[in-house]
């Protein structure tokens, strides 16, 4: 069990190490002539207008919210998916109904969001 994950661990280290190494090499190679203009935040060449605070629509939060809810749903569905063939063989239609209820409730949530217009991109 741990053998596989040891590879993942090592691979993780390698993956994490790769970008810094790249940047270091890049840092070595590239010229460094910063200038005030270069340093200014890029706004299509115009001077930055107003401070960077931007009135955010709540829409983004709601998408993230719905994503969280359905992400959890996926996390719960996967074990069922994996065990489905075995379960349906053993207990027939019952597990399926249970999952239908589970998903149905969440779909109800989705329909609510849809009905309330939470999904629209204002």
């Amino acid at each position, binding site marked *: 069990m741990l053998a596989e994950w040891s590879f993942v661990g090592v691979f993780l280290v390698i993956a994490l190490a790769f970008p810094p190494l790249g940047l270091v090499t890049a840092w070595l190679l590239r010229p460094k002539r910063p200038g005030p203009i270069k340093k200014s935040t890029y706004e299509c060449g115009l001077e930055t207008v107003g401070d960077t605070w931007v009135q955010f629509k709540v829409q983004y939060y709601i998408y993230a919210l719905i994503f969280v809810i359905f*992400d*959890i749903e996926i*996390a719960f569905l996967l074990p069922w998916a994996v065990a489905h063939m075995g379960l349906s063989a053993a207990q027939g239609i019952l597990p399926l109904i249970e999952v239908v209820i589970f998903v149905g409730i969440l779909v109800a949530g989705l329909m609510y969001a849809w009905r309330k217009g939470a999904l629209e991109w204002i």
Partner: protein
Amino acid sequence: MVESVPLGAYLVVAAALFAIGLYGALARRHAIAILMGVELMLNAVNVNLVAFWRYLSPANMSGQVFATFIIALAAAEAAIGLALFIAIYRSRDTVSVEEVNLMKW
């Protein structure tokens, strides 16, 4: 794995995590920081749970099932909490908990 690391170690780590989370929840001024503290505490609980599951009764899956439920509930709690803070932010234009003291005597 079990031989190398005693259960107590995990519990101590979880305890430390819990304590830090608690400190965060109690001491931080920013509402969302408090939420993070709570998340940490929940994770500590989860670690404890899984540790007990792994060391004491790995056969039945109750430990993992519980941990999963806690993860799910923590996520739901975070969602609601943040929605609450956003609502408060929008209505009271502040996120600092100290300024939200309607219940003050």
